[in-house]
């Protein structure tokens, strides 16, 4: 017998937009185990089967099922679209057909053209004309502004992978707002904000006024999008299904408008839980139905697609979109944020099988309830589809309500954005220091004023001085380049839908990054502790290095190496802070490569640590393959020592272990994984990807991809279908250290 639905507990959130307070008042912490969970319903399985068939078709067509080459993507450009209308609980697709991708030429018309061609399609001449003749695209605008130096740094692969030829992404709209408040309210609030922006019409005020006007239009478009699917988004959601549907449509609006590299969905789990538990208590929802809703949303999120240019695929392998969802965590007052819905999200990996998306991220604290830790550890061991990030480290910076952007980047929900900045190839910077500022591939002068090194062997002090000089010079160029890109992106490819769901005056971060971290640390150690003789060609450029003697390597809990790692991170961010940044954004730094470690390695010459020219870097902050001599904990400890305060955009660590090394049986494996996580995060580690896999399985999957359509593996901050990776990427993963039993 349905009882009356109890209204939510009131608080500050009733007076103004304040999701954190809503959660604070209405959270239902859950300390139990997983026994309440339900499997998939027949309806879910039937729907999922249809989608799997589409995935299969997509795979067979080389990765893209279909492209709409005629209509430029936007919030209301397409739709409605369905998989199986009467059997869908949560509706909404990016275009009128499942997995059909829209083009977004405003990012760069030539890129879209190439992306279409690579898949055997042709961009409509009309669109091409519009975006060449009448409307400048982001990509064109950036290149019209770049200085000669910036172009050189980019084309030589020193500062690279930048969002000048793809959309920056990384912004997380607060997609929960329409569900809690309704769009009518949000529109009213934005209108009030707009009136207040004046500042004598300074350049910044003009810009913000234009942006807020765009945001208002986006909110109105969202209303239309809602109508297409029969939802009145102007009012708040009345029940759990509506809350999930409203939130999803808001996210969908963003994914239709923009093809940002990473588009996380943020902290939705605990929010949905408030609605789900309220409906269950009122007797209008059962556990089975609650799981169905989460399963259905997950199916939708697994279907988000963007059209990418081939260059993009090389950087970010496996066709990712980074629909990152955060689960777990604690509140500032010591309660846990783990709810039944956090279990339900993890349960989707059982109900629907493993998958890389949505990118499930557990905000970990050793204080999380034991039942949840155990369940998560078990899922990790079975699916290798979860990543963990340190809630105790991030909560003090972000408060109780935050999301993870892309892989490892902290963003306060609703009030903070970041300007994404890919990364600087640090081993190349080191080689510039050894070659009088000339690039090691072509001998081209990049950094003026780097003194020539004296002596037959590399001398630590000289190298250090040169390297510091190069880093300082590069950091300045890096900031300037980013200033250009994001000024242009804001102007030409503004993410109105996402920004409309954030506070009008947001806090901005500018996220810089470094790649090849452990290569440089080990190289500096080799120079300091062994004898390293550069082999130079006729032009005097280093071609190889002859190393005599042993040297400490990063990843062995050896302070000599680890201290160099710390120094490197701190000095890089210190240099970045010296140059003024666009819109007064705060610089942050990541040690994250995603899968670009393969490409960056390919274009980088031999390095003094003994790494051969062209071979991949280790991903993220990982130690180099095969140099970890003291086992798992030593390797983890080296990474966990890296100072998060200096790299607040995240420090990514990917950890692969064969099941038997974790313990003799499933129970012990789980318990030991929890101990490893507890230890790692107590020691201050920020992020860890956990893969529990046998190498042989991956080798088999390389040979027989058809047998493993769902095989998922964590790479660097996200997960991919292993069989969707290129051969190069697959081989790099096999080279990685798989910690084995004694």
């Amino acid at each position: 017998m349905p009882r009356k639905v109890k209204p939510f507990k009131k608080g500050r959130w009733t007076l103004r937009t304040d999701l954190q307070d809503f959660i604070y008042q209405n959270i239902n912490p859950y300390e139990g185990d997983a026994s309440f969970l339900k499997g998939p319903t027949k309806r879910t399985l039937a729907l999922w089967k249809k989608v799997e068939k589409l995935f299969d078709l997509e795979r067979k067509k080389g990765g893209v099922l279909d492209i709409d080459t005629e209509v430029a993507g936007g919030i209301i450009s397409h739709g409605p679209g369905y998989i199986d209308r009467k059997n869908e609980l949560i509706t909404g697709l990016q275009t009128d057909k499942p997995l059909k991708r829209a083009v977004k030429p405003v990012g760069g018309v030539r890129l879209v053209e190439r992306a279409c061609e690579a898949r055997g399609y042709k961009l409509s001449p009309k669109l091409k004309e519009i975006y060449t003749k009448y409307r400048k695209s982001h990509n064109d605008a950036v290149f019209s502004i770049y200085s000669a130096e910036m172009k050189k740094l980019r084309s030589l692969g020193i500062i690279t992978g930048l969002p000048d030829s793809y959309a920056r992404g990384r912004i997380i709209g607060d997609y929960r707002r329409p569900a809690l408040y309704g769009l009518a309210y949000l529109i009213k609030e934005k209108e009030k904000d707009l009136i207040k922006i004046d500042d004598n019409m300074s350049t910044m005020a003009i810009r913000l006024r234009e942006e807020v006007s765009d945001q208002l239009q986006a909110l109105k478009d969202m209303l239309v999008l809602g109508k297409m699917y029969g939802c009145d988004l102007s009012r708040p959601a009345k029940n759990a299904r509506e809350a999930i549907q409203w939130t999803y449509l808001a996210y969908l609006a963003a994914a239709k408008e923009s093809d940002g590299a990473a588009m996380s969905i943020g902290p939705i789990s605990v929010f949905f839980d408030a609605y789900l538990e309220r409906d269950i208590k009122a007797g209008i929802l059962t556990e089975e139905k609650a799981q169905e809703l989460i399963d259905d949303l997950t199916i939708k999120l697994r279907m988000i697609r963007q059209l990418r240019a081939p260059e993009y695929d090389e950087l970010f392998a496996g066709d990712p979109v980074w629909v990152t969802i955060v689960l777990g965590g604690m509140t500032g007052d010591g309660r846990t944020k783990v709810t039944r819905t956090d279990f339900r999200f993890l349960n989707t990996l059982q109900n629907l099988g493993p998958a890389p998306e949505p990118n499930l991220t557990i905000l970990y604290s050793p204080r999380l309830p034991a039942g949840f830790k155990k369940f998560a550890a078990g899922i990790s061991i079975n699916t290798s589809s979860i990543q963990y990030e340190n809630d105790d480290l991030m909560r003090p910076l972000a408060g109780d309500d935050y999301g993870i952007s892309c892989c490892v980047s902290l963003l306060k929900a609703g009030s903070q954005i970041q300007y994404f900045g890919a990364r600087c190839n640090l081993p190349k910077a080191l080689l510039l220091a050894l070659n009088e500022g000339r690039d090691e591939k072509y001998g081209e002068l990049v950094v003026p004023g780097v003194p020539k090194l004296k002596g037959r062997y590399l001398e630590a002090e000289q190298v250090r001085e040169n390297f510091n000089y190069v880093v300082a010079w590069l950091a300045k160029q890096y900031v300037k380049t980013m200033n250009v890109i994001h000024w242009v992106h804001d102007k030409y490819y503004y993410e109105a839908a996402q920004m409309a769901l954030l506070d009008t005056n947001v806090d901005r971060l500018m996220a810089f990054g470094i790649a090849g971290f452990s290569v440089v640390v080990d190289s500096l150690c080799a120079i300091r502790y062994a004898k390293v003789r550069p082999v130079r060609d006729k032009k005097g450029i280093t071609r190889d290095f002859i190393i005599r003697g042993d040297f400490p390597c990063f990843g062995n809990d050896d302070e000599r190496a680890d201290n160099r790692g710390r120094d490197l991170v701190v000095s890089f961010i210190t240099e970045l802070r010296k140059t003024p940044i666009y819109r007064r954004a705060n610089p942050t730094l990541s040690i994250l490569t995603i899968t670009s470690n393969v490409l960056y390695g390919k274009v980088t010459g031999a390095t003094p640590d003994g790494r051969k020219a062209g071979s991949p870097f280790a991903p993220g902050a990982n130690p180099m393959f095969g140099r970890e001599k003291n086992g798992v904990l030593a390797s983890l400890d080296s990474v966990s020592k890296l100072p998060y305060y200096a790299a607040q955009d995240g420090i990514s660590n990917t950890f692969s272990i064969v099941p038997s090394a974790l313990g003799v049986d499933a129970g012990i494996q789980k318990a030991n994984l929890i101990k490893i996580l507890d230890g790692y995060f107590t020691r201050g580690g920020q992020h860890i990807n956990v893969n529990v896999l046998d190498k042989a399985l991956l080798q088999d999957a390389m040979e027989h991809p058809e047998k493993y359509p769902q095989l998922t593996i964590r790479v660097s901050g996200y997960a991919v279908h292993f069989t969707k990776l290129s051969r190069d990427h697959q081989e790099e993963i096999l080279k990685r250290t798989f910690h084995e039993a004694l």
Partner: protein
Amino acid sequence: MKKTGQLHSIETLGTRDGPGLRCVFFLSGCNFRCKFCQNPDTWTLKGSQKISLHALYDRLLRLLPYLQKDGGGITASGGEPSLQPGFLIELFKMAHNMELTTVLDTNGSCEPKYISRLLAVTDTVLLDVKASTKKLHKELTGGELEQVLVFGRRAAGRWARQGRPVLVLRRVLLPGINDTSEELEKFARYALSLDKQPAVELIPYHSLGAHKWKELKMKYPFAGLKPPGVKEWGRAAEFLKKKGLTVYKG
């Protein structure tokens, strides 16, 4: 007090030789020459590093959050760790001060005058009894069986009286060599004669260490020996279980 030792290597994640997570220290030097040795590179001090207790303390301190839970701690292995008794005893004392448990993986050849001091700081003894007849033991290992049996007896005696150290008898099962009924019979009789009855870990022989022999330019004596199958292992385990012993697979 011996403050430095000769270390071969460290494995920071041991999950199989005792409770919790364990940091395993492989100490250099061995007085046996087992024909099936998986770590012949630990026999001599060549390539070993001198390490101070202080340095190990720093390392363990950093790893405490991993090791301290559920009775985790350190394991001393080798080589033969008891060949460095002074250092080993200090290492174990230090571990106890850090609330870490201590496991000793030994061939049982500790010099008698150190035995009681060593056992006093050991929580678990994993004692290799590689053969149970005098001749075979000598042949397989080059070492005397008697000292091994004495070490086990003293460990079990202390265990019975003082509750520590727990004793586990280990045997690497070499098919057709040390799994004969005579061998197993004697092995069981010894185990049952102790003051407190130890569990038995039967480790199927494997040849994964063979490449190390090659690297050291030595001939691997057991080159054709096949690892025991599930059946052979099961037969040996069954035999010991019938005698009333607890057997598990290593």
